[in-house]
């Protein structure tokens, strides 16, 4: 089932990749770099995004509880899925890397099955590096309570610098 889903998702991503063949170069500060097995690039082998590019993608807003915040917090930003579609990612997992060299392996399904979000705003404001910015991978703990455990906490990388797509 899972294999089938992956296959279908992969096919979908391919289609999307064909549609969004050209990726413009970022005009502002680069906040996210996608590398690895991707079709669309705008800087050598990688696809770079500035804040504006990220926020133009299919996104969502959620207000939820996280282990890293004292109270319910509003997050907003593009869906992880939208970003991967944009770059025509093909692979089974992602390696999400943080500024401080922390990294976590995220299976592709997490992007396909769940509405995972690459949050760019916390409580309506862009996040500075001091405040877990610029990009924070947020799992939908509110709609999928079963995700609220250490397994997904460790995948919820903040201060994201790069996402590498691995076969």
């Amino acid at each position, binding site marked *: 089932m899972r294999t089938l889903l992956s296959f279908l998702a992969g096919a979908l991503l391919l289609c999307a990749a064909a549609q969004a063949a050209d990726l413009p170069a970022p005009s502002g500060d680069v906040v996210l770099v996608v590398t690895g097995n991707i079709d669309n690039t705008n800087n050598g082998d990688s696809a770079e995004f500035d804040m504006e590019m990220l926020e133009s993608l299919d996104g969502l807003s959620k207000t939820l509880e996280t282990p890293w915040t004292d109270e319910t917090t509003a997050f907003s930003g593009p869906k992880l899925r939208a970003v991967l579609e944009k770059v025509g990612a093909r692979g089974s997992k992602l390696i999400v890397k943080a500024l401080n060299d922390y990294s976590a392996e995220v299976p592709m399904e997490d992007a396909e099955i769940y509405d995972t979000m690459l949050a760019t705003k916390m409580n309506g404001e862009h996040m500075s590096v*001091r405040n877990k910015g610029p990009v924070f991978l947020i799992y939908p703990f509110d709609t999928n309570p079963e995700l609220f455990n250490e397994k997904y906490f460790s995948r919820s990388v903040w201060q994201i610098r790069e996402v590498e797509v691995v076969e």
Partner: protein
Amino acid sequence: MKNQLEIGGKAVEQAARATKFVLAVQIFLVCTVLAIFSMLVKREGELHDAIREDAIWAVYQLDRETRAVFEMVQRISHRIADAGVEAAEVAVAPRDLVTRYDILYSRLTVLANSKYNVFFEQSPNFRSRLAGIEDKILAIEPVFNDIAAQKNYAGVEFSPVAATLEEIRIATNEFLVRTNATISEARADARNDVFQGQMLAFLFMFAIVVAALFLAFHMLLQVRIVKQTREGMTRAAAEFEKAYEAAEAGNKAKSAFLATIGHEIRTPLNGILGMAELLAQKPLPAEESGYVRTITRSGRALLEMINEILDYAKIEYGSQQSEEIIFRLDDLVRDTAAVVEGQVLEQNNDLKLHIDPALDGAFIKSDPTRLKRILLNLLSNAVKFTENGSVWLEVTAGNVTDETLELNVSVRDSGIGIASDAQKQLFTAFHQVDSSISRRFGGTGLGLAICKQIVEAMQGTIGVSSTPGEGATFSFTVPVQRAKAPACIPGAPEEDAALSGPIPRLRVLLVEDNAINQRVAAKLLEKLGQDVTIACDGRQAIKQVRNAAFDLVLMDVQMPDLDGIAATRLIRKLGAPFERLAIVAMTANASDQDRQDCLDAGMNGFESKPVTFQRFAAILRAHGPSHLSADDVTGPAITASGASAACDPETSAEPDAFLPRANVVHLAGDETGEARRAELLEELGEEVFQSLLNEFFEHADTLVPQITMAAAEGDAETYDRLLHALKGASDNLGFTALTRTAEALRTSIDTSNQETRLTVELEKAKNRYRKIAI
């Protein structure tokens, strides 16, 4: 054996109690373990564990980031010292340095998260340490803010920053070590808690296992005890059964022995008695006459005893079957009373009869033979033990419902009476009040035991009350079924089609061994317009049936050589046309068993003797061809006017085609006898009737001495056959008293002088005939 069973039972009870106790303990243990487990599962410590782990990670990250910034700053410092600011900016981009600081800064905010409070506030040291680190990091913030703003290292003093970072590094390192130690401790404590809980759970689990083993052991024990007890019970049952079988076998053997011996004794005894009677008729000297009388008296007493023993043996052996027959109760009572009449006169007694008006003329369904037996026994006892006194026979009905009633019979006498302590044993077999009784009055003491057995077999009770010297009262109560009176009302209109309407002309074979009966039946049938052929016994009947075609066979059942039942069986075997030949039994025996025997043999109908004119008509109608043409119809249309004694049953259309009235036993009184004679007179005419009577009396005159001879010779078979012949003929001609006497002699209830009694009755009949003739 009983003791053993009791012990077994107690053991089972004890084991059951122990099992219950162990079960209760088991349940308690299981509940406790469940509670412990739920505590372990719900343990809040786990959450704390997670937070602790997070906290140490956060502290570690803080230390790591501090080191990263410190190293970067040191590199920059060295580069500036070695090659100047520009070179340092190339080696480490100002932007990277700022980002690194920002990351360190972000670690502070993570640690400041309130969820760690639970952990850090356990020790005030942590808070103050963290506060110190925070102050120092914030202290160097302006430097990095400047670098971020100017995007180069120009004019930046790195040495104080490096010194502060060095301090922070030492502090975070210590913080990390402390945190780790504390967390290890907490982890150990938590593990200890869990361990203790687990140990407790294991302990209880162990207790459960022990209890379960104990329970299993107990169960096994119980199973063994139950098995032992069951084996004991089986053994006991087998022993009881064996004992019972032995007792039963002994009893049966005893009864069989008595029956055999009784028969063996009776035959020579009849010889002795017969010879003694013949001797008594010879002129003998007074002394010898006395001897003969003594022989006769003693012989009779012996015969009576043997008869009683035989009866008792028969009842005990279970060979006596009961019947359910509809009969007139008052007839039975009067008939029985008539039997002891002679004895009553001999003892100079007075017999008074009282029958409940409700029972006078009532019909009941019960076993008349047995009832008569009890009644006769009680009456003859009463008469025997009373001299110059009175005997009262009272019959009343109690508990009358629509279908049943209780028959209460009491026989009271003014005789010698019975002492109260002897009364209890009266109904026990072979018991008499005292041994002198048998010497004075004779008897085996079996009579009342037989009565008791019969009454109990009929679901009744029997008892006695007596005052010595003033007489005794024996009374018994038996439940009987009420029966609808078969409408014996002369002149009642006949509704049954079989009893009215045209009579078909049939070819009738009359099978009858008795000459008188032959003539009576033949005359009546001829009067009804039938072609009658006569066969004298079963063999002739078969021969006749094969030679000529008949529509109906009227078959006497009791015949010498080949009886009616055997003859019928043989006829049925002859082949197809004979299988459907109508055969109707005629017999004086009207019990259920007789009816069944006739049916089984393949007969189509059953008539009890004597068969009336009306009954003959009914039989002919019932068995005639269904498609009657006018030519076939003959004879007078019989209506109820001629049926003065017609007894029609309530059920006319019995499925087995047995004609009505067969179920009613004939206990006809003199009235019915007279009605019979009147019927014959009317149907046959005076001439024929008189010739019949003459023939009967001639025949009877020769029969009586033959009977006496047979009795004297002890030839029971001939004796019975002759009496049967006499009885059949006299019954046919309506000589009720003579019929009764002959029947009574046959059943050997009373074996007193046959010749005298028969002659007396015969003379009475002759007188009566003369009365009719006049």
